[in-house]
């Protein structure tokens, strides 16, 4: 009969398939042991209790000193808060100011911006569109670093010295769903694991009572759907778990109507005792796993509501973030993200919908920035005050950028709309903060009209390789064998962007 001590002791590492190969330096007993385990925990056996959703990572369990130093090297970041602005914000009006574009606004764009290019919506040679000249849209040099940020993000201007910008990110895809999949899974069609799943697979979780990869969404679901946080061919325990702000935060978390806490305990105890009898008889270690999963489920019923209850935060914090308990808002999600990383959730991903501004960009952009500016700045400040920013990586990203050319004047008659910007894959701006990134820094430069890259291009594969690097993961060695070959997040590409490392 298998010997199960405390349920927590059988949680070793989130890896279960015999066909996964995460090479570890040979030699030490622990690495051998882990390799033995990796090669033998049978596929489909549910990992014999070893692979709960809530795996503690090996570092926390003290089982593997290598893991303490990161999977492949010492990590700078231990956890990630990844903010994805769904639809793609107009980076030219927020971060990448182009005086030349402003000057030539209204002129027909150069032929090479249009001829032979794939654009999502623009069908006739468009005009250039500069950022408006009024104060509301002006850029300001911020902090000691002097980084330029639009007045549309006044609070973010205040933390500019903590941010590390990449102005030359570029991607392969220019439609939302494929581009979201490409940014988040490294592949433009369905079926590959998302970056959060890869990280969960590589590093496990630091908390026994919460998932290692949590997703928070404001607005509609995005085009890529659940695949944006799916686990692809990785075991499903690595998929992102969506925490909802309405109803149960995790589906089926609350007891059925009329079932009290003590009654639930009775049910779980009865299930446990009967399962234990079966285990004694049959000896299948999978039953032991089941027993411990029911215990974890029971604990989650307490830990998740506690986590989601932001009402317990002091007034100062609510004022700082602009949060209102009980509401669905991006601000609430930012505060929740901080509470999650505090509790050891490895990867928190925030999706905020509503940035796809093909028309009326200068009316709509201020509305959206008004929703996110304060909470994001508060999140960075708050993490910093708590000493968490040092090893927490905060990321601002989108599936692509927006064109320096205008779109939206193609309607007819009264339907004529105000100008917006189309999808743009050639170059866009993202930023990171904390987690070993170089603070107050700008990497890369676009051309004068903000169309292409003048120097230091960063491909999305490079960006993803860099994120993994900060987490102590070698993107070329975090692999999973599927369909006869080793897959990785960065396919066969990806160069670490050393210029953004602290």
């Amino acid at each position: 009969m298998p010997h199960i001590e405390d349920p927590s002791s059988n949680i070793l590492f989130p890896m279960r398939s015999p066909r996964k190969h995460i090479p570890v330096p040979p030699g030490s007993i622990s690495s051998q042991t882990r390799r033995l385990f990796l090669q033998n925990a049978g596929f489909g056996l549910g990992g014999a209790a070893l692979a709960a959703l809530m795996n503690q990572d090996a570092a926390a369990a003290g089982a593997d000193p290598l893991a303490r130093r990161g999977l492949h090297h010492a990590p700078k970041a231990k956890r990630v808060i990844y903010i994805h602005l769904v639809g793609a914000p107009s980076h030219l009006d927020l971060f990448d100011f182009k005086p030349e574009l402003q000057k030539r606004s209204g002129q027909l764009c150069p032929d090479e911006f249009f001829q032979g290019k794939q654009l999502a919506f623009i069908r006739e040679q468009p005009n250039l569109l500069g950022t408006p000249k009024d104060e509301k849209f002006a850029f300001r040099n911020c902090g000691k670093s002097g980084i330029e940020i639009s007045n549309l993000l006044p609070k973010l201007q205040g933390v500019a010295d903590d941010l590390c910008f990449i102005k030359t990110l570029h991607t392969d895809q220019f439609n939302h769903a494929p581009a979201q999949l490409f940014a988040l899974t490294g592949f433009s069609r369905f079926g590959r694991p998302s970056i959060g799943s890869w990280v969960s697979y590589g590093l496990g979780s630091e908390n026994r009572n919460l998932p290692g990869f949590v997703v928070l969404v404001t607005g509609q679901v995005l085009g890529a759907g659940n695949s944006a946080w799916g686990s692809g061919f990785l075991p499903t325990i690595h998929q992102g778990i969506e925490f909802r702000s309405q109803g149960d935060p995790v589906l089926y978390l609350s007891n059925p109507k009329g079932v009290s806490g003590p009654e639930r305990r009775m049910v779980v105890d009865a299930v446990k005792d009967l399962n234990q009898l079966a285990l004694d008889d049959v000896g299948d270690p999978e039953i032991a796993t089941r027993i411990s999963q029911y215990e974890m489920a029971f604990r989650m019923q307490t830990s998740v509501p506690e986590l989601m209850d932001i009402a317990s935060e002091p007034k100062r914090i609510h004022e700082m973030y602009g949060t209102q308990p009980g509401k669905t808002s991006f601000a609430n999600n930012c505060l929740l993200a901080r509470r999650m990383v505090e509790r050891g959730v490895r990867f928190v991903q925030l999706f905020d919908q509503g940035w796809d501004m093909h028309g009326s960009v200068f009316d709509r952009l201020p509305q959206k920035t008004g929703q996110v500016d304060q909470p994001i700045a508060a999140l960075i400040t708050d993490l910093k005050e708590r000493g968490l920013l040092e090893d927490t990586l905060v990321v601002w990203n989108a599936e692509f950028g927006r064109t320096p050319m205008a779109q939206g004047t193609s309607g007819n008659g009264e339907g004529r709309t105000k100008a917006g910007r189309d999808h743009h894959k050639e170059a866009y701006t993202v930023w990171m903060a904390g987690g070993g990134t170089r603070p107050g820094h700008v990497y890369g430069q676009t051309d004068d009209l903000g169309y292409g890259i003048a120097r230091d291009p960063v491909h999305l594969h490079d960006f993803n390789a860099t994120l993994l690097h900060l987490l102590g993961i070698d993107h070329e060695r975090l692999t999973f064998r599927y369909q006869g070959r080793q897959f990785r997040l960065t396919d066969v590409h990806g160069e670490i962007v050393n210029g953004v490392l602290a």
Partner: protein
Amino acid sequence: MRLLKFLPCLPAIPWVLVPAAGEAPDFNRDIRPILSENCFHCHGPDEDARKAELRLDSFEGATEGGEFEIPVVPGKPDESELVARIFSDDPDEIMPPPESKRSLTGRQKKLLRDWIASGAQYDAHWAWLPPRRPAVPEVKQAALAANPVDAFLLRRLEQEGMGFSEPAGPATVLRRLSLDLVGLPPTPREVEDFEAAWRTGQDAALAAAVERLLASPRFGERWARPWLDLARYADSNGFQADQLRPSWAYRDWVIDALNANMPYDRFTIEQLAGDLLPEATVAQKVATGFHRTVTCNVEAGVHPEENRVNQVVDRVNTTATVWLGVTMECAQCHDHKYDPFSMEDYYSLFAFFNNTPLEVSLPKSVNDVSHDFVGPYMDLPLPPEDTGKLAKLDRRLAAIPRLRKKLIDNPKSGYDAWEDEAAKSLANAPQWELLEVVAFTSNGGEDHRTLDDGSVLLSGNVPGTARYVVETTTELEAISAIKVEALTHPDIPGKGPGRGDSQRTNFILSEIDVVLHRGGKLVPLELFDAKADYSQKNWEVANAIDGDPKTGWAIGQEFGKPHWATFTLAEAVQPRKGDKLVVTLEQNFGRGRVIGRLRLSAISDPAGIGTLPEDIAKILGKPEGKRSRKDKNALTDHFVKNSPGIRELDLEQTRLRKERAALAPDKTLVMVELDTPRPTRVMARGNYLEPREEVAADTPALLPAFDSSLPRNRLGLARWLVSRDNPLTARVAVNRWWAEIFGTGIVATLEDFGTQAEPPTHPDLLDWLAVEFMESGWDMRHVLRTIVTSNAYRQSSKVTPRLREADPRNLLLARAPRFRVDAERLRDNALAVSGLLSTKMHGKPVMPYQPPGLWRQTGRNEPKWVEQKDENRWRRGIYIVYRRAAPYPSMVNFDAPDRAACTVHRPRTNTPLQALTLLNDPAYVEMALALADRILVEAEPADRIEHAFRLVLSRPPTGAEKRRLGVLLADRLAHFADDPQAARELLDNPAFVYKPKHKDRAALAAWLIASNVLLNLDETMTKP
């Protein structure tokens, strides 16, 4: 150390794959995996990636060498450069090089050395060679071999000094068999009968049970699940808007084909090319839905050709995975790194699938956020009773224009009277009178207020869709027509009249209904003759009264302006005091395409003056002498078109069209071949914008040649796949079925039989089964029957410490496997034991309970989750609607995929989310209620625990189990008897549809708790 204590004696590699001491390494088993993993990347089949002109994937390549010393000198490891390189310490010399981040273990190096020493034999990869029927081996324990399956397994076990476990008891065997073959547990009665039969003769009892289950219609429903995972069958497009689309007839085809035991060759041909068969039947065309299940991106920026190419790529890759078990997709962008497939092979296969039409087209308006889905559908046949009705309707509808023309050509008298009355009415100028709004309700949750002009202005929440119900009164003595005005207002985004989009202020009036409320009576008023000031193309105002909720009246492009529509009553009504006219406006398009400001009015105007076109009214206003000839013609023309006879015909036409819309046949997606094939070119780096040399349709060069007698189209390809000399199709299929039953394939990599595959644990058995399968006439049931009547299948699944130590992955099957069933069977099982399961088959996808709000609006024509409160909520999981962006959540928690891509095997996880689902999902709690009721109704108090175990686990409880459940029950019974309010709280749950029969509420509540426990047991969800 703790880890070792917990995982004792684990060998470093699956030991069944290790050569015995003193034996020379076997190339396919021991050497190819090392070379393939570590060397072929640069020294393999991909010419472009090859370094130093050296290839190690063939004997010639390895022994001739490239730019350097000869890598492999057979029999002479010390003269072989390969050995020198792999054992080197010099970073510039060592292979694989450090930058490749690959390295060889000491054991691997030794194996390579030993292999060269033994002659460096290269064997062809086993899977490329056709299977031959091997001799059934002699075994020591011959009595234990019920059939050849046992013999192959026993031989391997005996080599390790092992044997089968003891046989399982009959109840376990029947439960296992039922879950495997029909996906449902046996009933207590079936268990009893089987146990009786077992006592008289095990083999006969088993054979009879197997035949009974194979013949059950439940068989097809259970085995359709893995096939539909392969076919990535779903009910939605995937991507941005993820709209639903009809493909369920294909799902039913699969179920029916499995139930009919359609031979696998025919099963293959009909799905890949049913449309190309001579005189293809409807069913054969439905079968081609297999390749129309592929995702489709209607996002507006997508180029239709790009979407089409992506779809063809998916079809090629899925075909290769499902039938050949090879990963062709690698060769989409470059020659395959490990297997001998070139890019030319890939695009030659692509050419077979390259002849279907585009499935999306550019939207009509450049501002539209979605493409139009234009992929081919096929109408499904109507049920016979509807066919006759439809023909009659169509005949009459076809006749109406002729009758109408006749009337127009022979105008009857009455013109003068009409002109008189019209002129008189015009003088009295019948006016549109406002219908006074006394109540306005909407299901959209908006705010509204009535403005001074009697119009209603909507504000606040913008719902996706809405139904406005407007209660009005009027002073008019008679009403002959109704007018709907959609007005603008500065508070509406973009001025309106529609609310959803400030740029495109459209609305879509899907359907309008008018009902007269008189006393307690409701009199529906029939509308016809719809007119409007303007209608968008394809959104004519007549659509608002055609009874089809998918069509409607819209005003696209004419944004920011007021619009009106009028509808004539078939018969004028005379309202009395206290009557109310209730107007219902359905606006179900989605995305807030709803009217922002609404005004209703009515007119009493039997001559139709008020609805006269302006020009006609103008002519009538002129004195007769001043009317031109043209004026007169216009008047006559107008009269004729509005004369009573014509009016009748128009009314009838509207009515018949409504009836016909209700009879519209269901549709399904099918493959349709273009008349002229598209040329296919190799695409550089897989990019459709970089076409290279043209290729003809052909099968991969490595595999048996494409017979010249076969047509070079999908039909020929399908026939080639199931030809007797194809080495892969049969092996791949039987291996999947084996894995479905035993948990792991004979080849563990079900999706890959290439050189990177895990070697088969029992190669002879795989080949024997493959040959047996083909020679039985591709009879799937024959294979299943052979497997489940083996003694291996009948073993106990107990995991003894010795077995765990000897074979932790149970690769040799010294015991039966024991694992949790898949998501569908898990739910079906709980429905079956609770007595709720509906065995209704086929048809549109069903929507049982799921937590509210999961299908958030994702785009136009937002599909809604409409929970079914009838037996449909308790139908088998295979019938639940599969929406790719949001599949049924409780099944997702048990590893159901999103079906966006071909899934060969589902993972089998064990997570806390699963515990939460089974403990708390109201759907499962409702099942617990039904189970509680069933136990209470069916058994006497003293027998209830025993009955419960027999229902749920197909066996009586042990003493300890009985005591444990008894303790819980006693406690809860006392509690609920003491606290009836607590029982009410538990039992009166608005999520429940099931109405229990048992009247004792305390007992019901206590047993609900106990049933909740039983449905959560590991054994309940596990194939024993």
